[in-house]
C-alpha cells in the first residue's frame, strides 16, 4: 500500500540515479545577496540519495535561503547546481517539482479558503472527462493523511486549522507525489512528539527508497534521531560538514563560534500572590471544556498537550480572542471576561500568538512600528494622540539590541528578517509596557539554540522580577526544564496538574494521551 502511494502517482520525477558514489544534488559556490547582506557566500553542498542531510545554523545563517534556491523559489546570484549529474537552472518552484524536488517551506503556502483536500492537490487535480474526479481525490487525500497518521479531515477548511495542523497539511503536500529530493524546513517547529514520530517514520521509509532529504531543524535531538550528515552554516558561509554523531557541544561551537553550556537556566521559585484564576472555562464546540487553572506571581506554569488538545485555545480565550461559552477569568481578583483586548492588556495580561505571520507581525511595516504597536497608546510613545517618534526609535533600538536582533535595522520591514529573528520581534512587542502576566504560545518556534537560550533567560528574568508566566508549549524539554508547575490538557479537558518532582517526561506524556483525568 505504502509502495503504491509513493510511486503510484509520479508526476514528473525522472529516474533516480542509483550510483551511490555520485551525489544526487551538488551545489558549488552558491551565493545570494540581499540589500547589505550576503545571505549565502559561496556555499558548497552535496546531497546523496538515501541520506538525511541536516542544515544547522543560527537564525539568519542562510538555511532557508539555501533550500529556497534548491526548490526554485529564489535565484542564486552565483554558483552552480548539478542535479543527477547535469547542470541545472531552476526557473520556478513548479519547474523544480517536475524534476522531483519537493519542498515544505518554513512559511506556509496554503490557500486559507480552500479545504485540506483542495490544498493538497492544488495545481495537479485529477480529472475525469474534463471534470474534477472528486471521488478519486477524496480517496487519495484520505489515504495520504492516514499514511502520515495526521488527524485531519480532508474537507476541513484550512482557515480554521491551527498552525500545527497547517504544518501537517504542508507536509502532506510534499508527500503527495514521489520525490527524488525532499526538503523540509523546520517541519516539526510546531508539532508535538506524536506527530513528529510519525513524520520521522515516514522519512525513514522514503529514505530507504533512495530519496535524498534536506532537513532543517534547531532541535539537536532530532539531528541525532534521523540525521546522517550535518552541514553547519554561519553568516552565509559553510563552516563544516560533519557526521550526525558529532557532539552537541561541538555543533553549537561550530554554529555560534562559542561554547554554550546551558540552554535551560536555573529559575528561582518564589511564588507570590495569585494573579490569574480561571474557573470552569469552556469555549465554543467544546474545544476547551470546564478548565480551571491558576497562576501566581513569580511562577512559570506550563500548559502541555497534543496538537488539538485545546491548550492554545485556552490561551486565546483568556485574551478574549476565542468566544467563551462558560466559566470566568479573573486577573488579580477582577473579572476580565467582558473586556476588550486593549483593556485586558492595560490590566497586565499579554498574549503572544504562535503564528507570527498570520497574527503576530505586520510584515509590510518596519520593526520599529511592529514593536511599538501594542504600547503606542501609553505615555511612553504618545501624548494626547501625538506620537513621540524619537523616543520610539530610541527605545525600540535599545530593546532590539537587547534581544540581539540580526541585522539590527529597525527601519527594515519585518518581512525581510529570517524566521527566528521575526520571532524576536514578536517577543519584543510585550516588553514595551507594564505586564504582569505573560501568556506565551510556542515562544521558541523556529529559534536557534543561542537565541533559544536567550529567550529562556528572558522568561526567567520576567519571572524572577515577579511576573507570572503561562507557557503554552509543544516542546517537551521546554515544559520539563523551565516550568514550576504543569497543566496537561487532553481533548479539551484538563487531564493533570503536575508540580515539582512530578514533572517528568513520562508523566506529561502519559497524561497527554489519557482520555480523562483519573
Amino acid at each position, binding site marked *: 500500500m505504502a509502495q503504491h502511494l509513493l510511486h503510484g502517482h509520479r508526476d514528473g520525477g525522472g529516474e533516480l540515479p542509483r550510483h551511490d558514489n555520485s551525489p544526487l544534488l551538488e551545489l558549488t559556490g552558491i551565493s545570494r*545577496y*540581499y*540589500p547589505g547582506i550576503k545571505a549565502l557566500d559561496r556555499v558548497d553542498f552535496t546531497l546523496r540519495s538515501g541520506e538525511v542531510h541536516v542544515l544547522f545554523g543560527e537564525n539568519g545563517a542562510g538555511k532557508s535561503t539555501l533550500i529556497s534556491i534548491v526548490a526554485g523559489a529564489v*535565484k542564486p*546570484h552565483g554558483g552552480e547546481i548539478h542535479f543527477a549529474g547535469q547542470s541545472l537552472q531552476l526557473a520556478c518552484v513548479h519547474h523544480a517539482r517536475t524534476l522531483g524536488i519537493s519542498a515544505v517551506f518554513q512559511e506556509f503556502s496554503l490557500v486559507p479558503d480552500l479545504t485540506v483536500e483542495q490544498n493538497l492537490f492544488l495545481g495537479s487535480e485529477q480529472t475525469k472527462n474534463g471534470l474534477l474526479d472528486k471521488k478519486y481525490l477524496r480517496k487519495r487525500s484520505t489515504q495520504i493523511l492516514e499514511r502520515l497518521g495526521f488527524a485531519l479531515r480532508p474537507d476541513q477548511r484550512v482557515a480554521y486549522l491551527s498552525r500545527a495542523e497547517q504544518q501537517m497539511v504542508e507536509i502532506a503536500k510534499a508527500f503527495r507525489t514521489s520525490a527524488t529530493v525532499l526538503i523540509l524546513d523546520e517541519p516539526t517547529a510546531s508539532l508535538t512528539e506524536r506527530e513528529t514520530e510519525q513524520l520521522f517514520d515516514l522519512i525513514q521509509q522514503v529514505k530507504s527508497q533512495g530519496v535524498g532529504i534536506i532537513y532543517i531543524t534547531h532541535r539537536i535531538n532530532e539531528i541525532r534521531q534521523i540525521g546522517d550528515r550535518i552541514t553547519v552554516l554561519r553568516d552565509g558561509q559553510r563552516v563544516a560538514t560533519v557526521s550526525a554523531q558529532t557532539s552537541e557541544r561541538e555543533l553549537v561551537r561550530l554554529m555560534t563560534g562559542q561554547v554554550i553550556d546551558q540552554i535551560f537556566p536555573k529559575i528561582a521559585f518564589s511564588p507570590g500572590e495569585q494573579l490569574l484564576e480561571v474557573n470552569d472555562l469552556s469555549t465554543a464546540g467544546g474545544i476547551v471544556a470546564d478548565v480551571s487553572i491558576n497562576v501566581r506571581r513569580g511562577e512559570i506554569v506550563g500548559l502541555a498537550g497534543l496538537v488539538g488538545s485545546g491548550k492554545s485555545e485556552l490561551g486565546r480565550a483568556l*485574551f478574549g*480572542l476565542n468566544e467563551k461559552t462558560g466559566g470566568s477569568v479573573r486577573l488579580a481578583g477582577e473579572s476580565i471576561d467582558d473586556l*476588550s*483586548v*486593549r483593556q485586558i*492588556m*492595560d490590566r497586565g495580561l499579554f*498574549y503572544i*500568538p504562535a503564528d507570527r505571520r*498570520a*497574527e*503576530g*507581525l*505586520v*510584515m*509590510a*511595516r518596519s520593526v520599529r*512600528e511592529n514593536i511599538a*504597536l*501594542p504600547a*503606542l*497608546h501609553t505615555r511612553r510613545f*504618545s501624548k494626547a*494622540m*501625538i*506620537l513621540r*517618534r524619537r523616543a520610539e526609535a530610541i527605545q525600540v533600538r535599545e530593546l532590539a539590541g537587547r534581544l540581539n536582533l540580526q541585522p539590527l535595522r529597525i527601519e527594515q520591514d519585518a518581512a525581510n528578517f529570517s524566521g527566528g529573528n521575526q520571532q524576536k520581534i514578536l517577543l519584543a*512587542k510585550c516588553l514595551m509596557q507594564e505586564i504582569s502576566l505573560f501568556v506565551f504560545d510556542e515562544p521558541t518556534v523556529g529559534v536557534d539554540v543561542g537565541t533559544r537560550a536567550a529567550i529562556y533567560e528572558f522568561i526567567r528574568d520576567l519571572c524572577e522580577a515577579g511576573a507570572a508566566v503561562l507557557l503554552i508549549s509543544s516542546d517537551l524539554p521546554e515544559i520539563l526544564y523551565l516550568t514550576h508547575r504543569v497543566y496537561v490538557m487532553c481533548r479539551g479537558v484538563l487531564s493533570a496538574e503536575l508540580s515539582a518532582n512530578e514533572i517528568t517526561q513520562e508523566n506529561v506524556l502519559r497524561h497527554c494521551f489519557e482520555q480523562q483525568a483519573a
Partner: protein
Amino acid sequence: MSDHDRMAVKNETTRGLVARVLYVFQLVLVRWGVLPFLLIIAVVVFALLSENFLTGRNLMNVVRQSTYLTLVSMGQMFALLTGGFDLSVGTILALTSVVGATAMAAAYTAMPDAVVLSIVIGMVAGAAAGTAIGVVNGIGISLFNVSPFMMSLGMASVGFGLALYMTGGTPVYGMPIEFGDTFGFGTLLNLPVPVIITIALIAVLYFVLNWTRLGRYFYAVGGNIKAARLSGINTRLTLFLAYVFCGALAAVAGILLTARLDTGEANIGATMPLLSIAACVIAGVSLRGGVGRLENVVFGALFIGLVQNGMNLARIESYLQIVVIGALLIFAVVSDQLRLRYIAKISS
C-alpha cells in the same frame, strides 16, 4: 595618442557616464517608483506639443484644477491603506453638491440678508450629506463585514439616485454669488482659495498619518488586521474612520467644486473613483493595504491633472483622454510589479 586611443578613451568615459546615469535611474526607480519618470515624460511631451504648457499661468491652472482630485485621492488613500477601496467617492461629490446647493439656495431665499449664514448652512449640509455616505460605508464594512467593493458600489448607486431624485437631473441654482466668488474663484496672497484649503488639508493629514496613533493604526490594520487586533487596536473603529475620512474629504472636494461651478450638479464626479484609485496606485499605494505615502499621492493626483491639462492643450479628444487615463492606470500597476521584481533581482 593615436586617434584610435582617443576614441577608446572617449568611449570609456561615455560608458562611465551611461553607467552612472543608469545607476541613478535605478535608484530613483527603486526608491520612488515610476512616478518621477512619468512626470518627466509628461512634462517633456506636453511641452513639445504645446508652447502654452510650460507657462507659469498654465501650471498654476493645473494645480488649481487638480485640487479636487487631490482631495479625493487622499481620502481614497485611507480606504486603500486599510486594505479596501471606495467606489462611492464620485457619488459623494454629486450628493454633496446637490444637497449643499439646495440648502444654501433655500437659506438664501429665506434670509436674503444673511449671506454668510446661508453659505455656512449650505456648506455644513453638503459636508454632512457627503460624510454620511462615508459613515454608512464605514458601518457596513467594519461592523457587518461587507466587502468594501459591494458596500461602496451599493452606496454609489444609492447616493447617485438620491442626488438625481432631489434635482430631477437639472442643476440647482440660486446660491449667493459670494459663495462662488470666495471658494471657487477667490484668491488669497495670489493663491486660489481651493489650493490654500487643499494645502492646509494636506498638512493636517500628513500630520495625522505620520505623527498620531490613529495614522499608525491605519497602516497596521491594513498590513495585518489580526496582528493589529492582538496588539490591542480597535480594528473596527479604525476601519470605520478610514471610510469616514474618505467621505469627508470627497465632501470637501464636492463643496469646492460646487463653488467653482456656481451650481449644484448631480452629474459631477463620475470619473473620480477611477482617477483617485489611479492616482494612489501610480503613487505606490499598495492595493493589499498597509503601504503608501501621502506626499506621493499628492504628486500622483497632480500628475493626472497634468496629463489631463496637457491633453486638453494638445487638443486631444475627450473620449480619447479617457482611454489614455485607463491605460496609464494599468501601466502604473504593471510597472510597479516590474519594479518589485527588479528590486528582488538586483538586491545586492
